[in-house]
C-alpha cells in the first residue's frame, strides 16, 4: 500500500499500521460529512503524523502510483471539500 501526502511525498505503509491509518481516514471523512472543522483538522493532523512516523518514505524517483492520497498538511475542511467537488 502506497500513500501520498499532497505537497509532501509518497510513503510505503507497513501492514500493521494500515488499520490505524484507515481509522483516521474514517474520522476525517465523518468530520467532512458533518462539517466539523475542528474534528477534521485534528484527524488530518493525526493522520499525517501517523504516516510520517510509521511509514517508510519512497525515493523521489520511485515512479509507482499511490493507492491513497492525504490532503495537504494544514488544509481546512472547506479546502478539501472544494478539491473533492472540483474533481478532475
Amino acid at each position, binding site marked *: 500500500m502506497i*500513500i*501520498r501526502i*499532497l*505537497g*509532501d*511525498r509518497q510513503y510505503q505503509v507497513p501492514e500493521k499500521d494500515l488499520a490505524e491509518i*484507515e481509522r483516521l*481516514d*474514517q474520522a*476525517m*471523512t465523518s468530520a*467532512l460529512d458533518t462539517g466539523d472543522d475542528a474534528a477534521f483538522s485534528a484527524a488530518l493532523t493525526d493522520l499525517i503524523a501517523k504516516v510520517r512516523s510509521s511509514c517508510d518514505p519512497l525515493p*523521489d*524517483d*520511485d*515512479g*509507482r*502510483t*499511490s*493507492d*491513497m*492520497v*492525504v*490532503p*495537504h*498538511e*494544514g*488544509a481546512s475542511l472547506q*479546502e*478539501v471539500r472544494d*478539491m*473533492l467537488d472540483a*474533481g*478532475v
Partner: protein
Amino acid sequence: MSVMKRLSGIVQAKANKALDKAENPADMLDLTYEKQLENLQKVRRALADVATAKKRLELQANDLQSQADKLQSQAKQALAQGQEDLAREALTRRSAIGEQLEGLGTQHQQVEAQEAQLTQTSQRLSAQIESFRTKKETMKATYQASKAEAGIGEAVSGIGESMTDAGMTMQRAQDKIAQMQARAGAVDELLTSGALPDVTGSTPDDIQAQLNAASAQSEVDAQLAAMKAELSPGGDQQAIGAGQSAGAESAAGSGAVTTEDDVAEATIADTSGGNGSGGQS
C-alpha cells in the same frame, strides 16, 4: 468513500490528463520529460510569487507596528496634557491596528508553510527529472530493440502523479496568495482612507494636530500668566497664583487624571475653605 480514496481517484484522473498521449512510446518519454521541465518552471515561478507576497506582508506589518507605537506615545502625551478623550481615541485606534497585526501574523505563518511545501516540491521534481532524464534513454533503447513497452507506462504514470501533486500544491499556494492580496489591499485602503492614520505622514494626523494645538495653547497660557504676574502691583495676587499652582500640582501628584473643570472646582473649594478658616480666626 473515504477522503483518501476519493482524493486518490481525483489525483489519478488528473495525472492521466496531465500527460499528452503519443502514438509512439519513445515519443511519449520525450514529451513527458518536456512536461516535467515545464512543471518545474511553474513551481519555481509560484515560489517567487510566494516570496513576493511574504515580503509585502512583512512591510505592511512594519508599517502597522510603527503606527501602533506612535499612537501609544500619542496617548501618553495626550494624558499628560489632561486630554483623556484624545488619549482614549489614540488607544482605540491602536487596538484596531493590533487586530490587523494579528491577522497579518497568521497569514505570514500560512505563507511560510506554502513556501516550505513548494520548496520541497521543487526539490523532489528536480530529483525526479534528473533520474528520468537518464532512465528514459535506457527505456527508449529497450523499446527500439524489442518493441516491448518495458515499463514505460508505469514510469510515466508515476511522473504524472507527481506533476499533479505539484499542480495542486501550486494551486493552493496561489489561492492563499489571492486571499492575502485581498486583505493586504483592504489594509492599504484603511491606511490611505485615514481610518488608520498613514505612518508616512502624507495624510494629516488629526491626533497629532490636537496634541500640537494643546501644547501651543498651554504655552500661550503660560506666557499670559507670566505677563499678568509682571503687571499685577500687589503681592497678594501672586500668593494666590502660587497657591493655585501648588493645588494643581498636588492633584497631579496624587496620580488622579485632572481635567480643567476639576482644577477649577478644586480651586474654588480651596478659596472658600481659606475664607472660612479666615472667618473663624
